[in-house]
């Protein structure tokens, strides 16, 4: 049997910080975010990626009955759509109207809450599920955590939240030679009662799921498109749609999970690399060769859990950097200090009941802020620099620490 293809795209934009100064701290209504820059970047990416890519997806969905796709749109991306791109939101809604697109659940603020605060984590997932329902008229049943951060507990919590599927990175060390194209299941265990109680209290879906399937990113084939497509020194360059389809068919298992940043199309790989033409030619080739592109839920519907292998992940993994762990966001002094300081304020911030304050605090939870503070110059430093709007990790921390200081002063006022 031919494997099926499962496309999933991450769509996210953080709220970048303004060049805050210490002299502004504690002087009342300070806006932490760079609205001009955020708007500019959003429009740039909209023109290069979101709008042309969505138009192409719509065309492919309408023309090819066996072509389906899935997205996770972060809550802060959706908020920015409202501010800077109603046209972008509308184009996603058009895709939703085809009935062939699945939207996944995630933390609204694209945060690291899953590894810091369970209560905040549950609240953010709930907020995101409600937003997807409201904007796209469907309730997500598959969960994907920020940047595919994953461990056994995260899988169990997702099941308790009510999801029957979760997305994760197919890390070699955990796969131990097994094929990432088969759905896995997490090891079975019970969470401490106190933690189960928190999940129950803030559950986004009506009831817990019996089982949860773990769909793993096939990072080799995903990265061929996302990272290597235009790399002239790569042995596979130039990548031909037929060749790529051969690779997909030869990779075996039930479904090849191609998970990537949506910005791959037009932003990371510019239009002149031929990335759109490559994408456009895939569905016809697949139709001819009897390959279906399906959503995560379609895979899970056909999943035989009794034959599933266990994907056992004690220490958190993610899809970031060579290390595929949390070291893109945590580990150096400034990252740890920033992360600790912001979450320390959780209780105090929520106690104020001040929506504006809570919103500002939550926007500061977005993982990108910590990503920009990464100092792993020796390996993935260039990737971090490419994505960072600031000139250095220290500049990222300088701005963040001023926002934090102001937040503290507002709390003590």
């Amino acid at each position, binding site marked *: 049997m031919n494997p099926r293809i499962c496309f999933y795209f991450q769509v996210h934009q953080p709220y970048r910080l303004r*060049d805050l*100064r*210490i*002299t502004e701290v504690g002087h009342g209504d300070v806006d932490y975010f760079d609205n001009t820059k955020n708007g500019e970047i959003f429009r740039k990416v909209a023109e290069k990626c979101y709008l042309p890519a969505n138009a192409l997806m719509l065309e492919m969905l309408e023309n090819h009955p066996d072509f389906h796709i899935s997205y996770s749109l972060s809550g802060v991306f959706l908020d920015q759509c409202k501010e800077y791109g109603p046209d972008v939101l509308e184009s996603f809604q058009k895709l939703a109207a085809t009935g062939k697109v699945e939207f996944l659940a995630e933390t609204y603020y694209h945060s690291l809450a899953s590894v810091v605060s369970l209560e905040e984590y549950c609240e953010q997932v709930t907020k995101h599920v409600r937003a997807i329902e409201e904007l796209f008229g469907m309730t997500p049943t598959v969960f994907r955590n920020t940047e595919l951060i994953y461990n056994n507990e995260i899988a169990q919590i997702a099941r308790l939240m009510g999801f029957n599927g979760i997305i994760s990175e197919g890390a070699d060390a955990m796969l131990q030679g097994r094929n990432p194209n088969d759905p896995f299941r997490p090891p079975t265990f019970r969470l401490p009662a106190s933690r189960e109680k928190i999940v129950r209290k803030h559950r986004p879906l009506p009831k817990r799921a019996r089982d949860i399937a773990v769909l793993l990113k096939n990072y080799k084939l995903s990265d061929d498109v996302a990272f290597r497509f235009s790399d002239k020194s790569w042995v596979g360059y130039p990548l031909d749609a037929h060749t790529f389809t051969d690779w997909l068919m030869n990779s075996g298992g039930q479904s090849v999970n191609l998970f990537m940043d949506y910005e791959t199309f037009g932003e990371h790989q510019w239009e002149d690399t031929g990335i759109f033409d490559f994408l456009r030619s895939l569905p016809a080739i697949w139709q001819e060769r009897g390959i279906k592109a399906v959503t995560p839920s379609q895979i899970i519907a056909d999943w035989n859990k009794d034959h599933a292998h266990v994907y056992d992940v004690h220490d958190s993994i993610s899809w970031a950097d060579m290390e595929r762990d949390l070291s893109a966001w945590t580990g*150096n*002094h*400034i990252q*740890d*200090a920033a992360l600790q300081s912001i979450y320390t304020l959780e209780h105090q911030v929520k106690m104020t009941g001040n929506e504006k304050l809570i919103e500002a605090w939550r926007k500061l939870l977005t993982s990108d802020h910590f990503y920009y503070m990464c*100092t792993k*110059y020796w390996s993935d430093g260039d990737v971090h620099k490419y994505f960072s709007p600031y*000139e*250095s990790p*220290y*500049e990222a*921390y*300088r701005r963040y*620490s*001023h926002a934090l*200081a102001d937040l503290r002063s507002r709390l003590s006022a």
Partner: protein
Amino acid sequence: MFGWEYPPLHLGGLGVACQGLVRGLLGNGVKVTLVLPHESETSDTEVRFPTDEFVQKLRVCSMLQPYSTFESFEADIRKVPKNKKDVYGDNLGEAISNYTEMSVKMTEDLNPDVVHCHDWMTYEAGRRAAAHHQVPLVAHIHATELDRTNHAPNEYIYQRERMGFEAANRIIAVSNYTKNVLIEHYGIAQEKISVVHNGSADMAPSHELLEFKRTQKKQHPLVLFLGRLVTQKGAVQFLEMASIVHQTKPEVNFVMAGDGHMFEELVDLSCKLGLQDSVIFAGKVGSMEASQLYTQADCFVMPSISEPFGLVALEAISHGTPVILSRQSGAAEVIEDCFTVDFWDTAKMADCVLTILREEPLAHQLRSYAPRILNKLTWQHQASHVQSVYTDLIHC
């Protein structure tokens, strides 16, 4: 190799860089004969300098000093006892030609593969020696006249520099910043310029020092400036920054170490800015004093208006001190764990200082991460880049 200053007789970074490079080259097995305008006690390498006997023979001697300008040279001349005065040239131009003549003469019997000269005062000597021996000439540029004079160059010096750049088969610039100055303002073809950043002989701070700094509590944090008190070094910008910091955090002290012709003007300015109780002018400091200041400082600021490299930044880092560097500097190209600001943006400079003083995790990270550069930028390693320039020239 035609040098200019060499420790222990040195005024600025050039002597230190020259020594580092010579030691690095020797470590890599390159034979170096160094020619200096003055006697040197170094045991590093064979040094040739004009001895009394030699001067007798040539009847000329130079009293060249680095960072000379025509005015300061005349001042020096006036300090020379009258009866000795005829030994020296009457003006800088004549002194250089004397130095040049002697240097070339002293090296006639050598058989070099490459002639390497450092900064404009030695370029003519380099040019003539290279022509005499018919070998390639390398002109090393540590600081241009435009850096020193804030783009109001002495025409004579500027022309000397250009002559050297044009005569050289290859130019070694101490940073991309300097390379761009050569391309933009001297019209030099970029293929002719190789960038070799300065190295450092400094050691990373000890774990104990870092722990001490992490745990100590200070009533009066200290922000340090170390450099000549001249326009080029951004001394005025330092005081402007200090004044902004002072408004938010009056308990901060500022030390300006170094001397220079702007001393009085800066004292005046600091009083005008209300900083009379916050700024300490330490004068010219020796290496022991400098070391103590670096260690005591909570933050080192190098606000240079135009800084080809800036070895002081590496010295501060080696004492476990966070640094804020002017973007108009070569050091900012190689040091990752620091703040960089435009020299004119003194408000941002002040904000960086205040952030470092407020945020201990940030200060600790800058103190402990920045020294990684010292392991990368060893003179041995940087000299190997210079060596490959030699190899290139000899084989082509």
